[in-house]
């Protein structure tokens, strides 16, 4: 591979060079903004998702306490199944005070839907309290959106923006070359 021939750039008209430089700067600025926005969205989503999951865990923990105390598995199962509509919760299980598994709900088993291959779930634990006494523990396997998911989601918009910029730049270069 030969070295880049700078003489070809030097031969370009000054106006074209200036336009190319401006276009390149704008493209880099756009790219950095996009990356920044993606990271910001990821950070915000992480915060919001954590809060949402904590809230869900506390609500279910509060509701499942009585079922656990009275060893009512049907009622516990019913409570755990309430996460069926929450997309990013893959499984949820309830342990009694001795650490024995009392009930479990897994989406793929109950709904007949295979879960997407999203890698390892992170686990959220919440104590089940009745009158301030810990009577059990609730565990949830969650899979919040990764930075790759967000980037993939934003990629179409970013690609369209990039193509628009490229088209503008091309028009500008053609205009200068024709002059």
């Amino acid at each position, binding site marked *: 591979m030969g070295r880049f021939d700078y003489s070809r750039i030097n031969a370009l008209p000054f106006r074209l060079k200036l336009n190319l430089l401006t276009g390149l700067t704008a493209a880099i600025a756009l790219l950095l903004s996009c990356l920044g926005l993606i990271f910001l969205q990821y950070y915000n989503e992480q915060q919001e998702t954590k809060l949402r999951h904590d809230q869900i865990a506390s609500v279910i923990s509060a509701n499942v306490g*009585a079922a656990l*105390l*009275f*060893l009512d598995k049907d009622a516990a199962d019913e409570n755990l199944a309430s996460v069926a509509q929450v997309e990013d919760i893959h499984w949820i299980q309830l342990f009694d005070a001795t650490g024995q598994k009392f009930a479990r709900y897994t989406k793929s088993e109950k709904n007949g839907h295979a879960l997407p291959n999203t890698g390892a779930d992170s686990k959220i634990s919440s104590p089940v309290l009745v*009158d301030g006494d810990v009577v059990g523990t609730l565990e949830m396997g969650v899979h919040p959106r990764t930075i790759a998911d967000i980037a993939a989601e934003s990629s179409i918009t970013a690609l369209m923006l990039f193509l628009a910029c490229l088209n503008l730049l091309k028009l500008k270069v053609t205009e200068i070359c024709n002059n």
Partner: protein
Amino acid sequence: MHKIILRITCGFIGSAALIGTPVAHAQASPSGNLKAAIIYNILRFVDFPDGNSSSNLNLCVKRGVASGSSLFSLQGKSAGPRKISVSFTDLSRGADNCDVVYLGQSDASEISRAKSGGVLIIGDGSGFLRSGGTVGLITTGKQTRFEISLKAARQSDVTISSKLLRLASRVVR
């Protein structure tokens, strides 16, 4: 209206674990321990009128009932902010100063006598609610279920948590 029947399958081991401490009384029976565990758990989901943290929750047990000795294991346990104080009574002068009365198998006259001073009336048998009781414990084999009369609870100004109502085998409104 038909209520979903939820079976409560508390075994002896489970009940002992729920009570939390070994039952010290010599005459405590497995079914008695189970009943004590269920009664204790029921009390945790009931709000009593004028219930403040400084006073004890007085659980009066009718003298001579089969599970009476097991219920004594609840002495000093916390139900919400209040500590349970167990006492035995013959109900001849009603149930003064009782927040909860456990009658075992009883008839309507006994229940109405208990109601004069007690608030939450717990007893055994399928006919207990019909006789005016608030919570009836029904034992079938090794299983013990409970029924709740919301009507009796309302009359006594007692609030029973919806979480408990969901688990009851029958709720009389």
